[in-house]
């Protein structure tokens, strides 16, 4: 049902295309899309560029409405969209700029194991992890929390999990925001959202969420790889999930609140899904507090899952997790809004940066980065789709200057889920992956087809554009060995 987008695109340089501010009434800044010619061809096949232009209409937006090369058509914001609003100038926060899966994100765990050491027992290892990690729609975990317990999770994030024994004290150091946004306001989270979150902590959920055992196949930047603790041939583990039903409910609740706020503050928008309120308003502050609380739930969730993975591997190999070197490399959020300072036209501004399907890419020297990474930039984790490579990148100064410290988040969907399922049968996808030596465990074959590699853009092409554009730098390529799909 998607029509080809026919608006104007002006080439700025090798990897950037501008949608001029004059394209439609209401645009306050231009749109800028990061892509090469072949990715751009896929991008204009649907209305994602129109959404970039729509986001440029948000009150208080500064710089440009940005789109990363993995951009695809979302609702309201495009997936792969980045927008910063100036808080002091009435800049807005929009739940549509974060999405339903608040703080959907990725973490990467290193090991002291060589991939070759586990190859002969790979299937058993994947099965052991599958048993340890609850997956699928509405999956519930072993933890049951009452409202008070949950509010602790919402306030303290990954730190809560560590205090309960789910992890090591140093883990929080290697999460964005140290695994908890300080502005979280558990009281702004509805009782319905709490109810949905009460039994889902420590679960992966479904959709494109996954746990993956990967091999470090190639190193591009030796110095950064060494700082991250990565070397060729090593086995590493990725966890991709978010805030589950609690986050979905926070988004649903606040889209209603923001719908009313739009009328109250007289905000004109081209798309209702962009509903928003000034961050410095009761509605804006409440949403930010609730979103931050949901983000903290997601960090706690990935932390509990990390503990389950450590337990399972420790049992499988009959040794302590510490001896296996199962250290957290980093944990990134790719659906989130944050208050950050950025330079815009030579002025330092306090902004609300929305990253919807985009990853923070803070460069070397940034004070919020862990000491270990301060010279090379933050690790940026870019998962591929099931069966293709993932990448570890490093943040750059150029991202600080051009993209509010942001880069891509993944491969970007190419086929609709229905089209993917029609053209690809889950069982065939599974067999073809197994021929390549990749073991897949999933609740349903239909789910495998929806998330099959051919449904996505080539992650390598996406990453290459960010590397050439300089908004992140290639550090290592990971190749999947075993995938547990949510």
């Amino acid at each position, binding site marked *: 049902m998607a029509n080809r987008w026919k608006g104007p695109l002006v080439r700025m340089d090798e990897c950037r295309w501008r949608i001029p501010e004059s394209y439609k009434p209401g645009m306050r800044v231009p749109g800028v899309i990061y892509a090469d010619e072949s990715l751009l061809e896929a991008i204009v096949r649907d209305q994602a560029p129109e959404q970039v232009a729509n986001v440029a209409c948000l009150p208080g937006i500064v710089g440009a409405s940005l789109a990363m090369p993995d951009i695809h058509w*979302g609702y*309201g914001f495009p997936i792969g969209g980045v927008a910063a609003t100036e808080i002091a100038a009435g800049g807005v926060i929009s739940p549509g700029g974060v999405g*339903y899966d608040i703080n959907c994100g990725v973490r990467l765990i290193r090991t002291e194991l060589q991939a070759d050491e586990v190859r002969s027992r790979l299937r058993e290892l994947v099965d052991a992890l599958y048993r340890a990690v609850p997956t699928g729609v509405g999956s519930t975990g072993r933890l049951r929390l009452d409202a008070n317990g949950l509010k602790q999770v919402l306030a303290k994030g990954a730190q809560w999990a560590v205090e309960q024994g789910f992890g090591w004290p140093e883990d929080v150091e290697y999460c964005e925001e140290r695994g908890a946004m300080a502005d979280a306001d558990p009281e702004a989270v509805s009782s319905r959202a709490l109810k949905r979150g009460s039994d889902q902590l420590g679960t992966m959920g479904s959709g494109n969420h996954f746990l993956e055992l990967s091999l470090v196949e190639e190193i591009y930047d030796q110095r950064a790889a060494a700082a991250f603790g990565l070397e060729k041939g090593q086995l590493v583990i990725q966890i991709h999930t978010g805030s589950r039903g609690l986050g979905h409910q926070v988004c649903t609740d606040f889209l209603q609140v923001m719908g009313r706020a739009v009328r109250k503050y007289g905000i004109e928008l081209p798309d209702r899904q962009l509903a928003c309120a000034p961050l410095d308003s009761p509605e804006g502050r409440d949403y930010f507090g609730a979103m931050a609380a949901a983000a903290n739930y997601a960090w706690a969730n990935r932390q509990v899952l990390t503990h389950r993975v450590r337990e399972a591997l420790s049992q499988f190999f009959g040794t302590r997790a510490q001896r296996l070197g199962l250290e957290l490399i980093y944990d990134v959020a790719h659906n989130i809004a944050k208050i950050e300072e950025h330079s815009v036209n030579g002025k330092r501004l306090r902004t609300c940066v929305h990253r919807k399907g985009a990853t923070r890419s803070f460069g070397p020297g940034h004070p919020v980065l862990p000491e270990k990474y301060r010279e090379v930039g933050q690790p940026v984790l870019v998962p591929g789709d099931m069966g293709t490579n993932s990448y570890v990148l490093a943040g750059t100064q150029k991202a600080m200057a051009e993209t509010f410290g942001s880069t891509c988040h993944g491969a970007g969907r190419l086929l609709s889920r229905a089209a993917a399922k029609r053209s690809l049968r889950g069982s065939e996808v599974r067999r073809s992956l197994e021929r390549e030596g990749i073991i897949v465990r999933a609740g349903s074959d239909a789910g495998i087809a929806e998330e099959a590699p051919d449904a996505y853009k080539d992650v390598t092409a996406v990453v290459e554009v960010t590397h050439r554009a300089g908004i992140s730098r290639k550090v290592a390529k990971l190749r999947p060995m075993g995938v547990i799909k949510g």
Partner: protein
Amino acid sequence: MNPRVTIIEHTADVGIEVEAESVEELFEVAAAAMFGLMYPRLPDAPTEERLVRVEGEEPVELLVNWLNELLYLAEAEGLVFGRFEVRVVRDVALRARAWGVRAEDMDPPVREIKAATYHMLRLEKVPGGHVARIIFDL
């Protein structure tokens, strides 16, 4: 107008277009279609019944709130609904009954729907009935 549902494709998500003679029927058909996207075979011998009350500031918001209320009930209480009876009051409020079964008595769903969105949302009166379009976030 006989009730009709068409599944529509969207790059990241999936949606439905629904036609029905009355608004009430349209809401019922939309709800069944939404659960049908998650569970290809809907429950036919319900063991659970829930009363649902929903409000919205305008009819389209009522439609979105109705579907999101059902998603909430389904997840919070572990239910799968398959049959609905809706009574719309003054365009902006509804009372309904929903029948279904416990989720553990069903095969696992083929996909998760996070929410009904406002994206490309449509609810209109047309000659002979009503039509609606809803895109779901998966």
